[in-house]
């Protein structure tokens, strides 16, 4: 299936590209609410539990992430595989971060999250939740990076 955009966000941070690169990993993980039981399988692959609100319920999602296309300090993507309890739904997502130096030592960030694979019913029921989650995560990342810049 064609990928389906969940959210994208562009903003400028008052820090150099190298500093943003050094911060971004920790910022992402600290901006994901409900991230628990994280296992780093190797330097680019992790597993975790993500406790999130879906249709008014707090649901634990199994999350497996793999960092791909890493081009320090310019960009990287995270391929995410999410699974709901009892295989209720499964989804593949790709989140991309691109960092470009702009004037006066600042850095422009472009964040984009897209669903690459998700069944019809989960899409019908959960796409809105997924969009809200992506948006709030990007907002948290922007806020944290701007705080630290």
């Amino acid at each position, binding site marked *: 299936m064609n990928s389906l955009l969940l959210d994208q966000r562009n903003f400028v941070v008052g820090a150099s590209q190298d500093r943003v690169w050094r911060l971004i990993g*920790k910022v*992402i*993980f600290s901006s994901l609410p409900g991230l628990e*039981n994280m296992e*780093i399988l190797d*330097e*680019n*692959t992790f597993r975790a539990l993500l406790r999130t609100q879906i249709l008014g319920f707090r649901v634990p999602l199994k999350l497996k992430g793999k*960092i791909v296309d890493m081009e320090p300090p310019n960009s990287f993507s995270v391929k995410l595989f999410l699974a709901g309890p009892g295989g209720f739904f499964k989804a593949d997502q790709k989140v991309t971060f691109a960092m470009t130096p702009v004037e006066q030592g600042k850095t422009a960030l472009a964040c984009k999250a897209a669903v690459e694979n998700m069944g019809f019913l989960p899409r019908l029921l959960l796409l809105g939740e997924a969009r809200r989650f992506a948006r709030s995560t990007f907002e948290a990342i922007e806020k944290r990076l701007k705080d630290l810049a």
Partner: protein
Amino acid sequence: MRVAVPEKWDLEYDVVVVGWGSAGTAAAVTAHDQGAKVLILEKMAEGGGNTSICGGNIIIPKGKEFIEYLDTLSFKTTEREIIETFVEYALKNGDWIREMGADVQVFRPLEVAYPTMTAGAGFPSVRGAETAVKYNIKGTPEEGKPSQRLWKFLAGLVAKRGIQVLAKTPAKELIPNAQGEVIGVTAEKERKTIHIKARKAVILTCGGYENDPRMKWDYMPVKPLMFLGTPGNTGDGIRMVQKIGGDLWHMSRLSCLIGFKAPEFEAAFWVSFLSEGFIFGDKYGHRFVNEAGIEIHEYYRELSHFDMEKMEFPRIPLWAIFDEQTRRRGALSRGTAGYNRDLYSWSLDNSAEIAKGWILQGKSVAELASRISVEPKVLDETIARYNRSCKAGKDEDFGRPREDLRELEPPLYAIQLWPALINTQGGPRRDKDSRVLDPEGKPIPRLYAAGELGSIWGYLYQGACNIGESLVFGRIAGKNAAAEKPWA
């Protein structure tokens, strides 16, 4: 001390390699490929040593400026020509691995843990630091952790060549002849002493002394030290070389993380944190360091403060104090490296370790203080002061960066930590040709060494250089040993 030459040899080989890790493999394979008949002696039931349980990264610099970097780090404890030789060969570590049938991939982690295992230089401000690049054996997590992939590859090289390995056969003594040439090894096999003739040379690659309490107490700068690595490293090679008059170097050097020591486990567990909600306190509850800024291999330097009045190391053991978010974020010991990696699976939310009493819990600061026998007033002030730093976004005391600050709120947890050796670096002094030297700087004929046994890292240690060095000087030792003319 004179060791008697035996009247009868039990086994005969061209080259005898003592110890089977990465250095031993590189030496044995190189000597074999040069036409030598090679035997590997290994004291443990299986090979691998620290190679199979380390981080698994290999340094492959991207330029000769790496010489300047290492020369600065060595603080003149290692001759420059040895560093130059190392870099010359380390530049080709990737080519050697590919020639041997595997491939490498760049180690490029996103930095999410404390302490951070950096992708490149451990000391980025030093000239030439940009040339430090770490690699590991290409593969996926499903094919094993980097060190498991590395050891699988190396062990396969030995198996493919049919190089004989005698496991559970510790070498006991080197056998020199009247001219001082090392012509064989005495070993112990099934409680019997055996004499093995080495027609060309002996290569020592049997690691350091991180599991020898006496040597550690004698030589290490902080005490006591736990160990994370293989229990097999008990200084055997050092004693063997001392007996025949070899010189030693770098004996007080170490690669040291922090670890938790459970009474029921021989080795310590390497501990790190996946969230910024933690601090370190000394045994009295005083904070003493920028916890996020310690170079991962050099922890002991921050713990080495000695109190002359109390006659103690007040930071040994230390307490790591952390919050609920950090507790839930991930296992404190993640099985990345260390001897316990395959012996115990730490729970992902640390709850099993709380139940075991390894991690202590307090609903309030006062309760936690009483559980770790720290004065409640001291711990309360430590945490309050740290929280004020977090609020201000500036750690006036120790300069912990703003991005690594987060206030600590109860419930709080504590785990007792010790300096924990990955490996020692000291052992026989050697030259750029891997030859073991006597106190006058003369090579002891037909004796070579490589790897952690007398490594070239004499002051500050750059991560991934132990494996890099093992492959480099293992190859050099193997090549030179195979080129020796047989004495018999």
